[in-house]
């Protein structure tokens, strides 16, 4: 195949961009991701800018540039301020701290220890990312630039090799080769299902010739997951480049990014990125002087969880109600507006440019036999460090929870981890050392899903967790197919019955049987995976269900219905205070004699408990 002559030299562009960055002087990176913005990072940025105006007079530096970046992932510690030239990461920075950083560190080269991260194990102040346990074990590829570049500057993206991979594939002019590289890399869909990306491209490319579409699925709906948002906010050009490469490979000339409207910052940055890329002719007509053209539109979703399902997403873009359609036909053959369509998740596409640049072998070195590369996870729950992480496939849960996560919070005991959000499952201590990849997790009864990781301690009620997720999927079911719409409703009813202390042993059989039918009979992935939290907890924590049903006890002490407020008669002096504060008149007794709580009347508000001067009232 004849090479295409480009009207642009990416090396020159990169040099220019690098010079531009050099000319910025001292770069102060302040996180301007959604989390840090909520914590006040815009004020921090303003303050740095204000002080930076006089940097040449006051300090050794000629110039200082404050760079608002995308998410660093360590949102819990926000606002994060990184000064790469000084090898320093400050955490939990407030507007009022900026002056001190400037005076002490930038002016007098004395790091501000109190604003450094404190290692939960050693209790030492740690200066930079290399030493912060949260970052030390991570391998960032999809998130490589998030937090390190100005997300709204195309030059900064170019300086870190942005659009170089696109230039390469257009110049080489061999779309099949691109697909082969992706296939060889072993990249699998990061949206949850883990379908081999190269194969999906191949299926769509088989229909080359007519109108085709590339669609980016940015409808991140799992509660707690925010990796896609981070990429869109922190490195939008990488996503656009990934889409352009995919479009080139499959022969599409039009693309949609489906983003939920709750992500206004991502939408704003993507819009700017598209405009900037079009101005540089990295998108639009005849990209870089070739025959390849690509227009990318943004479609704002209304936030239905089910729209992350690819056929529902297509329906939504078409203006229909977001309801999944049966497959086959697959989108590769009949997708958006009836045309062949490739749908990839944000993180999947963000992995594409680096695979093209560094090669399939480089990528496939990372990971396990069946799952290559790295995966982002949203780590949260009872661990010391929570946030967005990226690790090679095959990393164990133990490494994630106890190294990156810094161990259990407040010395709590590890009990379980919920992986993959509402579609995933609960795993236990026995799974801590299995290498996490698509297939191992499925085997264990969970799934990678979007990559949510909720760590739970023995203070978490597992039945309540199952109820929580079932409540979520029930409300997010599109209502189309019977097993999902009616099945999840009845699963939820049974779980509600159990946590309310009204469960019967036969409920467990019914729960399990119905869960299997919902899994087997549902139309789309939402319904097929909705019972996973129930099935996995039934498998690993059946005792806890039985405790709720037979003993009417919640071992974690969470389910209020099981709680009993009682008065220790030995300690009660009969002061009557409890009886007076009780809003429902459930406490009986006479002055100076021990009181008694009528359990049938008690609403467990605990007003008596908090008001008892003798600590005679306890929760059982």
């Amino acid at each position, binding site marked *: 195949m004849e090479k295409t002559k480009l009207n642009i030299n990416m090396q020159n562009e990169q040099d220019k961009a690098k010079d531009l960055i050099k000319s910025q002087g001292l770069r102060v990176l302040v996180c301007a991701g959604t989390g840090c913005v909520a914590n006040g990072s815009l004020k921090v940025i303003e303050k740095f800018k204000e002080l930076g105006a006089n940097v040449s007079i006051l300090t050794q530096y000629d110039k200082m540039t404050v760079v608002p970046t995308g998410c660093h992932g360590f949102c819990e510690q926000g606002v994060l301020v990184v000064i790469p030239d000084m090898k320093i990461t400050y955490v939990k920075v407030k507007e009022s701290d900026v002056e001190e950083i400037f005076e002490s560190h930038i002016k007098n080269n004395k790091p501000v220890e109190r604003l450094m991260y404190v290692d939960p194990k050693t209790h030492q102040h740690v200066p930079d990312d290399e030493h912060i346990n949260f970052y030390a074990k991570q391998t960032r590829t999809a998130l490589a630039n998030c937090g390190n570049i100005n997300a709204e500057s195309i030059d900064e993206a170019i300086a870190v090799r942005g659009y170089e991979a696109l230039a390469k594939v257009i110049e080489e002019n061999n779309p099949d080769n691109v697909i082969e590289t992706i296939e060889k890399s072993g990249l699998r869909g990061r949206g949850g299902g883990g379908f081999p990306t190269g194969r999906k491209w191949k299926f769509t490319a088989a229909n080359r010739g007519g109108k085709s579409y590339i669609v980016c699925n940015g409808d991140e709906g799992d509660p707690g997951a925010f990796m896609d948002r981070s990429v869109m906010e922190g490195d939008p050009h990488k996503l656009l480049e990934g889409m352009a490469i995919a479009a080139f490979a499959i022969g599409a000339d039009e693309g949609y990014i489906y983003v939920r409207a709750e992500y206004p910052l991502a939408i704003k940055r993507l819009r700017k990125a598209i405009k900037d890329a079009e101005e540089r002719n990295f998108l639009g007509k005849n990209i870089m002087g070739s025959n390849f053209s690509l227009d990318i539109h943004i479609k704002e979703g209304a936030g239905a969880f089910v729209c992350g399902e690819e056929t529902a997403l297509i329906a939504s873009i078409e203006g229909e109600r977001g309801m999944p359609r049966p497959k086959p036909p697959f989108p590769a053959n009949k997708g958006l507006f009836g045309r062949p369509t490739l749908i990839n998740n944000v993180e999947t596409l963000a992995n594409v440019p680096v695979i093209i640049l560094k090669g399939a072998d480089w990528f496939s070195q990372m990971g396990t036999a069946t799952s290559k590369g790295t995966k982002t996870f949203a780590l949260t729950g009872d661990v010391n460090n929570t946030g967005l992480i990226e690790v090679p496939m095959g990393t164990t849960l133990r490494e994630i929870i106890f190294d990156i996560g810094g161990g259990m919070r407040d010395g709590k005991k590890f009990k379980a981890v919920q992986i993959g959000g509402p579609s995933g499952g609960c795993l236990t201590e026995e799974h801590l050392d299995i290498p996490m990849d698509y297939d191992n997790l499925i085997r264990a009864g969970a799934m990678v899903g979007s990559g949510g990781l909720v760590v739970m301690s023995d203070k978490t009620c597992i039945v309540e967790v199952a109820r929580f997720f079932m409540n979520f999927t029930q409300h997010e079911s599109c209502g189309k197919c019977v*097993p999902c719409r009616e099945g*999840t409703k009845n699963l939820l009813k049974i779980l509600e019955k159990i946590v309310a202390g009204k469960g019967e042993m036969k409920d467990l059989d019914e729960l399990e049987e119905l869960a299997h039918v919902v899994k087997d009979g549902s139309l789309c992935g939402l319904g097929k995976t909705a019972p996973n939290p129930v099935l996995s907890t039934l498998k690993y924590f059946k005792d806890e269900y039985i405790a709720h049903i037979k003993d009417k006890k919640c071992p974690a002490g969470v389910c209020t219905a099981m709680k009993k407020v009682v008065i220790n008669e030995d300690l009660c002096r009969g002061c009557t205070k409890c009886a007076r504060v009780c809003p429902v008149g459930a406490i009986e007794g006479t002055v100076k004699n021990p009181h008694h709580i009528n359990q049938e009347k008690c609403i467990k508000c605990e007003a008596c408990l908090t008001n008892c001067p003798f600590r005679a009232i306890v929760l059982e």
Partner: protein
Amino acid sequence: MTDNKTLFIDGMEVEFSDEPNLLEVIRKAGLNVPTFCYRPDLTSFGACRMCVVEIEGRGIQSSCTMPPEAGLKVHLNTDRVRKIRKTVLELLLANHKCECLTCDKSGNCELQKYAMEYGITDIRFPKLEKEDYLPVDDYNPSIVRDPSKCILCGACVRACSEFQGHSVLGFVNRGSNTRIEPMNGRFLSQVDCVFCGQCQAVCPTGALTIKSSIDAVWEKINDSTKKVVVQIAPSVRVALGEEFNLEPGENTIGKIYAAARRLGFDLIFDTNFSADLTIMEEANEFVQRLTKGEKLPLFTSCCPAWVRYLETQHPELLSHLSTCKSPQGMLSPVLKEFLPKYYEGYKKEDIVVVSIMPCTAKKYEAIREQLINETDFVLTTKEFAKMIKAAGIDFRKLKEEEANSPFGQYTGAATIFGASGGVAEAAVRTAYNMVTGEELSNVDIKTLRGVDAKSRTKDLVVDIKGTSVKVRVVSTLKEAEKSLKEIKAGTSDFHILEVMACPGGCVNGGGQPISCSDSSIKEKRAEGLYEEDRNLEFRRSHQNPDIIKLYNECLGGKPGSEIAHHLLHTTYSDKFKGSYKDI
């Protein structure tokens, strides 16, 4: 394409050709799987999960959405499959307003049928409480909507959007709160519903039913001060028999006349007679417009759903609509006006006209302000069948009888009104004569025939003594909308536009016996009409001796006379204001 196009159903080798899905292959093999949401004339939806089958290597698949592939090994009744079906039934029944004994759909309800077939005797799940019943919408003349009986199969939503392009019904909410509702939770009467009844015709349960006029008609029949006369629409004769286990398409008109007499109707007439009358007036109107260069194309006005559609959606095109009343609309005032002339003891104010129609929208037509008090009651084919059953009449054994004169005779041109294209064909037969004074040699205009999904738009060019007249026939409003777009864009070249809202025309009307699971039924009904046309003595409306007599004795001698205008023509009103397009 490979030659080997066979697959295996429970071990049996089955050939397939162009079946769109596995379910059709299964049916072709003489087997079946249950389904609520699959309707051959609508797109496959895959929602009810009743038609699931187990395919080796592919797991559980809904057969209505699975394309047939060579070599598939399909199992229809495995444990997994049966468990899904039974659970689906239990889940649906738990959430269903189970008032089967008093439900209009009882006996025809698919939920009831499968619950029985699958032996659902106990429902494990908490049942819908009376307090949770949703309000019933019966604030329109045609359709009753009871959302608590809805199983959300989506057939009505698809019928409304795929047939009528109108989408007055849609899904709202999510999860277990999902419902099918008219826009903004309004009543059907408030959302420009045209009352075609196709939603009701595809509904597997009692969620959508026909608003019954049976009791009101009985009351009149039993009122000795009233003379209750009845008229029967063309397509009823080829469908009613199905309610009595006769074949679709079998013409039972003689038995229908007899049944009507047994029921106690005083005089029996045939809407076919007024279909001939309609052709006289409409062909005359067309010829007038053509020769005087007035507004063309001329739209037919027989279909009340189509008339309402124009009034609410495109009132600016109302001047195209023929001012002729529909055959129902013409016969009723003719009967009230002229029966006293021919029958002793008949007084205009005592005559009650009941019409038997294949159509739910005719109930709406009867209460149009321009037509009020002309047709008193409209019964659909289904309601009429119920009356016959309730009266203990053994329909199959009835001896054929004749209609009463003088408004009973009809021609072949009238009987084909019941199939899409029939009105246009009949009009051409007569218009030709009106312009040329000669008879069209070949009255079988096959180009305008066909009621299947491929025949929803049909074009014909006919040469009338040097003037070439272009005729466009469409069925479904979705298809009509395309022609309207052409007219608005100025690109249309046809002179007559025949529109029937139901796919295939009245043979497939919303009031006909249920036929949604077999698309060939409407074709057989249409064939029944064309067969009658072929066998009748007269096949051109202007040859009908009773019509000639009516004009001579009552209607001023010729079409378009003043009295004809007064009795047989109507006006339309702009109903755009307040319609959803206006909101």
